[in-house]
């Protein structure tokens, strides 16, 4: 069971790197949505011995939300804004890949040093979570397009979700669904803002937003 889970987490970490290295927005969104689906499968695998409707609901909602609804919204925003690639990132694609790789290695090294519970020691959950958070940060810092930043934010959130899986038994359903709802609403809001930015500035380049300070 642990091998399957570690494989999934490893895949998710690979998708992180893919997200960092892609200049085209559709492939970024694709990587993110695929990562979301993997994350949705994880609770089922972790608790395959005592499955119940609750877990099923969580998995389904996660896969639907992270894998389908949010990516669809983002694709729509992308089409509306008529943008499909990141042209001038603050951090280039190769440097961000290197940063991401270094972050992943650091996350693995760090999780060795952390005092984890024995049943979590063999899992890649903690390094995967930290690596995803760092990837999210790199995307947020390095990208100029608003849609890339939304993706960065979502990958960061995925990292937090991974961390939350450690507590899957003790987190109530309400909290779980609350987080999911939060993210979805956040993406809705960002979609609207993206549309507004597009109309006001004729571009989604967040650098132009500095004109709004004070």
């Amino acid at each position, binding site marked *: 069971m642990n091998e399957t889970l570690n494989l999934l987490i490893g895949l998710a970490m690979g998708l992180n790197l893919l997200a960092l290295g892609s200049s085209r927005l559709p492939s970024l969104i694709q990587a993110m949505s695929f990562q979301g689906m993997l994350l949705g499968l994880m609770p089922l695998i972790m608790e395959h011995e005592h499955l119940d409707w609750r877990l099923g609901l969580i998995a389904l909602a996660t896969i639907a939300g992270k894998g389908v609804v949010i990516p669809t919204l983002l694709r729509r925003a992308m089409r509306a804004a008529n943008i499909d690639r990141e042209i001038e990132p603050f951090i280039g694609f190769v440097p961000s890949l290197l940063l991401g790789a270094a972050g992943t290695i650091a996350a693995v090294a760090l999780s060795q040093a952390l005092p984890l519970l024995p049943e979590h020691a063999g899992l890649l959950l903690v390094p995967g979570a930290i690596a995803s958070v760092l990837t999210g940060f790199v995307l947020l810092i390095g990208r100029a397009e608003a849609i890339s930043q939304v993706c960065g934010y979502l990958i960061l959130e995925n990292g937090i979700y991974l961390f939350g899986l450690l507590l899957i038994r003790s987190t109530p359903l309400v909290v779980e669904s609350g987080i999911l709802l939060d993210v979805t609403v956040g993406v809705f809001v960002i979609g609207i803002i993206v549309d507004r930015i597009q109309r006001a500035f004729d571009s989604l380049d967040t650098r132009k*937003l500095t004109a709004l*300070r004070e």
Partner: protein
Amino acid sequence: MSGPLLLLAFVALVTAILVGVRSSRWWLALTVTGAVAGLIASLTVLLGATDWEWRSELTLGGELIHLRLDGVSALFLALLSVVGGTGGVYAREYWSEQHYPASAPRGRAWWSALVLCMGLVLVSSNGLHFLIGWELFTVCAYFLITLDRRRREVRAAGWLYLAASHAGTVCLFAFFSTLAARTGSWELGPMREQAGLAPLFWLALTGFGVKAGVFPLHVWLPSAHASAPSHVSAILSGVAIKMGLYGIVRFSGWLPVPAAAGWVVIGLGATSALLGIAFALAQNDFKRLLAYCSVENVGVILIGVGAALLAEANGDAPWGRLALAGALLHVWNHGAFKALLFFSAGAVLHATGTREMSKLGGLWRTMPWTAGLFALGAVAVSGLPPLNGFVSEWLVYLGLFDAVTGRGPAAWAAMPAAIMLAMTGALAMASFAKAGAMIFLGAPRTKPAAHAHECGPGMRGPMLVLAGLCVLIGLSPVLFWPAVARAVASWRPAWAAAEAPAPLAMLGSVHVVLAVLMVAAAVWLWRKAHANSVRRGLTWDCGYARPTVRMQYTSASFAGIATGWFRWLLQPERTLRRPRGLFPTEAIRLERVPETVLEKLLGPVSVAVMQVSAAARRLQHGRLQSYVVYVVAGLMALGVLVLLGGAP
């Protein structure tokens, strides 16, 4: 009896604020009523034996209203009433409706508000209410300073005043709130037995020192006094800066003071006195000269207060009460003669439209009343007998001399202070000789000066009242002794002295004799000058056949030697173009004395502060990406901190 009178004053002033915008006649009647009621109330307390105290069930800001009028506050309230009333009368003609249709109504309302708020500060006996009154009075004074706000320099002076006042108020907030936290209540009153409160004195000294214009904190004072309308300058200098002194006297009386307080206060006083008058001497703007002279007089008063604190620290030496009495009497005296001087400066400004002495001259022919009253004020402010300035400075001197002959450690403070006080007196006389000579003697230097006109009775009356007060205090100081002794007694109950010191009575009679002789000499000179048909010339005609206006002393050359001694401090800026060649065309020598403390010290410091702030502001640029970097960096730093901290 004080209670109803204070209530009357309160009601009159509140009504005056309300009707002041509409009718100047009603406003004047109400303001003068308020001032007279306040004066009588304070005199009742000063000449009676009991304090007036009123505890109300009403609350303001969650605190019960508690008012108190004791000797110290009554002394200041009397001064406020006199200057507030005479200034009101003066303002009606000086800042009249037909000259300033826009600002005259506003000015009337703010005037009453200022007098009212200062009165509230004086009577309130609750820290919170004191602060509220203090802030209100600061704001009222700001609006009065900027009455003529179309002029840029007036606005700049107003801002500087407001900024400096608030810097001082920060200290007062700290002072009152710490006091309230330590004692558990905002109530004020004698609490000298709580020795732990002593360090708070430094906060009070700084906060009140800004308002009083003690030397390095005086930066707001010259420009505010010079740019404000003259009746406002008079109340600022005569009363508002005294509120700072009131705070210092009040809280050094009610609270315990640190051991070094006497030394520091006497040192600050001596510095203020000497450096203030050095700056005054170098000014060309006569209102600025008067403003710096206020810094000097605050210094004189602080010397007295410092000597009293020293005396107390040295086992209640009797010379302390003499020095304190001198200081408190000087509060009155300075209020009277400085208001008189600002009123006469206002009359000159009214008649000629300029404050620069190098554009005036020869005004005594056209403005004899103003010239005479200015001369009287100048004699008083220079501390010459037989007027009031001499009486109070003489009391301070007596205290200092007794301290020196007492041979305690206090002698080491008293001796330099006495020497500096003497130098200050001499320089003050030089300053006012210069001011009087430049403005009133010689020939008019410009056309407006030649066409000046005497001020009307509405301005002359208040000046005469104040001049009368100066003469009265000078000729019979014994009359005023009980009031001052009462204030000293409420500062330190142990220092209650029933009898006036014997030399004071003698001083009064000497002054009367001196005054009679001087009047006789003046009459004799007058008759001689008129009987023998003496030809009259210009003041500095020096025997030339055709003296011209440009041969006269200028204000810089008149004081040139004395200002040379203080060149290290004044840092004058010079422009000099020497005559060149065989047929020189033009030569120029200009000298300007900057506001040294402001321009050379505070200016660079505030520029540096602005640069640091501008650099910090660059962090706030609106780029989301960098904000995320800040967050990540912060997280990393916290992580490193936890790792290094050896988390379990």
